[in-house]
């Protein structure tokens, strides 16, 4: 077996162990180890990206590459049959983009953490733990493993915000923790429901003695087991229940009579129980995305978090939400995904507009950017809900591009905050005169974010809008007004960025008198260049050569939309005939 993915996940953990062993006063050593760990992770991520074959058929289990599958926990509960949890990781087109992004941002974050002074050892320990859990989340193909990493992300984040954050850090950290925990509890309900409903055909065949232990099942064997299952020819004790996400994606693996089976006919609140389950998962991931109206933890968390943590939060943690929707919510419940597409798209549009309007009203530059994140994440939802190839590709592209650009934006805010210990827009004027290089990067970041052609944000928005415009004909999803309203969001984003730019950077140099004593207004340092230049270049490269990413995601997305549309339509028909009876 190939251990590339495991090394990707556990490299930061290894670095964390080294950090743990280093004495507290060796601050430079600790920083160097942390940076080295993230650099190695980036190197492996790039190697993986280069080695990933985007043209391979992305369908079912065969679509995952670099797969590692090990038995982890297995036990039988009497007549309930066997339960099986696996260490099951792999990459496809969706995860490869997120892995690359995580690698890049991890290094930038580590560099940006260089001027942390308080309890350096604790900080980098938590930082590396966070990197492990985020990477694990993007690579896990077993729901239990995914959930483990998903929940474990909260803890380091809670302390990183709560200990190293700004004045209201305790409140922001707690709010972040509670909000996202509630979200993951929704997901937990569904996870329990799913694994009591789904079997692993291969392991079941082994359990029944159809094939020997540790012998891989042929495709025919899998089909045969699935058929036997649906005919009720397998005894409860032989069924091997599984957390494997690919197994959950196949309707034929659902145990007849289980609640989440398409034919179960059980409804809750006048909705089929599968729809309720989808809505729970959706709610869980929407909190993470975040989408209006469950976004309120984000501005608080961003404003209070130290700069590197804001960067991580915006650039990769938010992506877990969108990623979860693509990985779990839609493929496992395609019927509900198709049924609720207007609802999800609507939330996307709402987030785009509401986020942009809030950003317009903010006086705090960091809050403005936090709300712009909400607005941009709305595009992810809209593209996903369209269920067209363009839309879903656009959603993934948006996640990637927003990861690069929002990292840049939060770094830029960090620069002015480090100098003036203030980031109120109205407290500054004409900064361009004193900080020309800084202003240049601000302009690049702002324009990249508002979707100027030539930057990655433009490609993402273009694809999403194309997808949602064509959706009514191509897939029958989304009303057309949604795409049109979303365009207004673009306009608004131009407005808040340009307005902020004009107020803070142009005109005569002036800063608020009370700030003058403490503020040392100087231009960028070498370390800041080191962070901003690569990000700017990447945003530009991925804006000019979109195929760098689309080649990798394309086949996976085609497989994804086909699966969701085909299964979704079939199952929707079944559900409707059962319920109308």
């Amino acid at each position, binding site marked *: 077996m190939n251990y590339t993915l495991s090394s990707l996940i556990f490299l930061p953990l290894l670095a964390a162990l080294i950090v743990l062993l280093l004495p507290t006063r060796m601050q430079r050593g600790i920083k160097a180890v942390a940076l080295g760990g993230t650099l190695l992770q980036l190197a492996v991520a790039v190697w993986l990206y280069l080695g990933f074959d985007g043209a391979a058929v992305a369908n079912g289990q065969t679509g995952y590459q670099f797969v590692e599958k090990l038995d*982890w*926990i*297995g*036990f*039988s*509960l*009497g*007549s*309930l049959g066997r*339960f099986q949890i696996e260490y099951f990781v792999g990459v496809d087109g969706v995860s490869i983009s997120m892995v690359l992004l995580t690698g890049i941002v991890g290094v930038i974050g580590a560099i940006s953490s260089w001027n942390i002074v308080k*309890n350096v050892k604790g900080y980098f320990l938590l930082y590396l733990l966070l990197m492990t859990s985020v990477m694990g989340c993007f690579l896990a193909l077993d729901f239990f493993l995914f*959930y*483990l990493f998903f*929940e*474990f992300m*909260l*803890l380091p984040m*809670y*302390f990183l915000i*709560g*200990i190293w954050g700004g004045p209201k*850090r*305790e409140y922001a*950290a*707690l709010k972040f*923790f*509670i909000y996202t*925990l*509630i979200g993951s*509890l929704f997901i*937990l*309900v569904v996870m*329990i*429901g799913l*694994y*009591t409903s789904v079997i692993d055909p291969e392991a079941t065949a082994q359990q029944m003695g159809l094939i020997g232990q540790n012998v891989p099942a042929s495709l025919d064997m899998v089909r045969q087991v699935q058929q036997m299952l649906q005919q009720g020819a397998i005894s409860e004790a032989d069924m091997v229940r599984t957390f494997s996400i690919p197994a959950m994606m196949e309707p034929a693996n659902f145990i007849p*009579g*289980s*609640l989440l089976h398409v034919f179960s006919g059980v409804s*809750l609140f006048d909705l089929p129980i599968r729809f309720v389950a989808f809505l729970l998962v959706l709610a869980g991931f929407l909190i993470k995305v975040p989408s209006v109206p469950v976004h309120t933890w984000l501005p608080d968390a961003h404003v209070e978090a130290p700069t590197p943590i804001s960067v991580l939060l915006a650039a990769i943690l938010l992506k877990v939400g969108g990623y979860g929707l693509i990985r779990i919510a839609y493929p496992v419940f395609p019927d509900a995904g198709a049924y609720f597409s207007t609802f999800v798209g609507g939330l996307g549009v709402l987030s785009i507009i509401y986020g942009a309007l809030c950003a317009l009203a903010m006086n705090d530059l960091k809050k403005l950017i936090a709300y712009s994140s909400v607005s941009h994440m709305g595009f992810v939802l809209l593209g996903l809900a369209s269920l067209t190839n363009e839309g879903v590709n656009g959603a993934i592209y948006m996640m990637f591009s927003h990861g690069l650009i929002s990292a840049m934006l939060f770094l830029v805010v960090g620069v002015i905050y480090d100098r003036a210990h203030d980031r109120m827009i109205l407290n500054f004027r004409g900064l361009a005169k004193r900080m020309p290089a800084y202003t240049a990067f601000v302009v690049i970041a702002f324009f990249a974010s508002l979707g100027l052609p030539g930057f990655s944000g433009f490609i993402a928005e273009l694809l999403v809008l194309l997808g949602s415009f064509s959706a009514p004909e191509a897939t029958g999803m989304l009303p057309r007004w949604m795409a049109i309203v979303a365009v207004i969001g673009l306009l608004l984003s131009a407005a808040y960025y340009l307005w902020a730019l004009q107020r803070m950077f142009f005109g005569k140099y002036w800063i608020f008198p009370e700030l003058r004593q403490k503020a040392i207004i100087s231009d960028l340092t070498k370390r800041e260049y080191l962070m901003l230049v690569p990000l700017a270049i990447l945003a530009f490269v991925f804006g000019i050569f979109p195929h760098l990413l689309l080649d990798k995601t394309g086949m996976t997305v085609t497989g994804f939309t086909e699966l969701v549309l085909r299964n979704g339509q079939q199952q929707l028909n079944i559900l409707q005939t059962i319920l109308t009876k």
Partner: protein
Amino acid sequence: MEEQAAQLTQAIDSILAGAGSLLPELLLAIFFLLLVTLDLFKSKTVKRLLPWVAMTGLFSVLVLLVLGPQGIDGVQFLNLLRSDGIARYTGILFSLTGIFTILLSLQNPKIEKRKQGEGRGEYYALILMLVLGLNLMSKSVNLLMVFLAIEVVSIASYILTLSLKEEKRAVEAGLKYVLYGTLSAGVMLYGMSFFYGLTGSLDYTLVSFWRSLLDASPLMVTVAAILVFAGFLFKISAAPFHFWTPDVYQGAPMPIVALFSTGPKMAGIIVIMRFVAAFADPTIVSAFADVQLFLGIAALATLAVGNFTALWQRSPRRLMAFSSVSHAGFLLMALLAFGSDYTVSILFYMTVLLFMNFGIFLFLQMAEEDWQVRTLEDFQGLGPRVPFAGIMALLFLLSLTGLPPLAGFMGKLLVFSNVWEAYTAYGQPMLLVLLVVGILLTGVALFYYIKIPYHLFLKRNQTAENLVISLSNKLLLVFFALPLLVLFFKPDLLLHWIEKLLA
């Protein structure tokens, strides 16, 4: 006369035949007597040895249960006691409870100082007595025996609560506990007498017992059941019979609190489990579907009361009191699945509960005795001064909340999946409500459990010199924390073993 004599010999024979399975209890009784006798000696060395004598007793019982031969499985002593895999496994848990209690007591300066002289023997002897009572509780299958076993535990508990009697709080707690306890015992006995009157028997394993209940007036049966369950629920501190919990937890010595939060609760759950096991009989289960509803409401109320009241607590002891109420609700919920397949999960959960509760109570004992912490605010800024203990406390609390990667999550996951399965099987909507409420209350639980780490690490304090923690305390913390990690990553090790014992 002849006939009676024959009956008597038969009874004696049956008792003797069953005596082998009672070996752990006999051992405990012998060590109890030994401790009481040794306590008569005035010598300092003997006094110092007393806890170790008690520990030896518990440890030998533990070894006997873990390694000893599979005892005679079945009902003994004229259908009063039943020794089976469940009794054996819980016996192991109770021995561990006793050992942990003594370990905590040895680390408690107050108990150690106070108990150098008089009363030292009685303290450790009573712990043995309590463990003996717990073992009997988990074996009883007759209402009279249940009552007797519960009373053995209760009387030992009353005195142990008062073992630091110069503290005003302890006296108040002890008095309240005795008053509530005797009242609930009386109520339970009253209910049992109803059952006896209705069925002519106290042996609830007989099918005829339940048959005659089906024929009796439903009102009478309901009243009797409510009275009996009041007694059971009191013992596991479930709502609405939990009112004694916070006061007793505040007054009793910390090791005893840790004992209360685990041992009697587990035993009480086993008593209820054995009582409702009869419902698994398909002819009866339909008639008693209401019991599922009734217990479901009790579990729901307990979960809600425990979790929401804990939010408002400012003392760590009271917080843990309500936490233990909420865990009682959780165990009740696990019971509702009504079937032997679910026992494994319940026993697994109990094991996890044992380690995390003793862990956090050890931490609280350190905080109270060594760092003078009385309220949650007193924890402020302590974290950086006691980094190791703080991180361990974080582990225990997260496990109590039920977050990965700790065994508390695994326990909850198993229980939740059982409830989901039970809902699929029975279609009782109460189960789904419980499942969803139970899961969502985890969010509430985080809110109060995180308060301790919140004050420890997030709040700042001027003084920054490190506090010294004794090596024994450190080792104990690790000892309680390690199983929590191991049982998350490899729960099947324990699950397989439990399964083998139950088979």
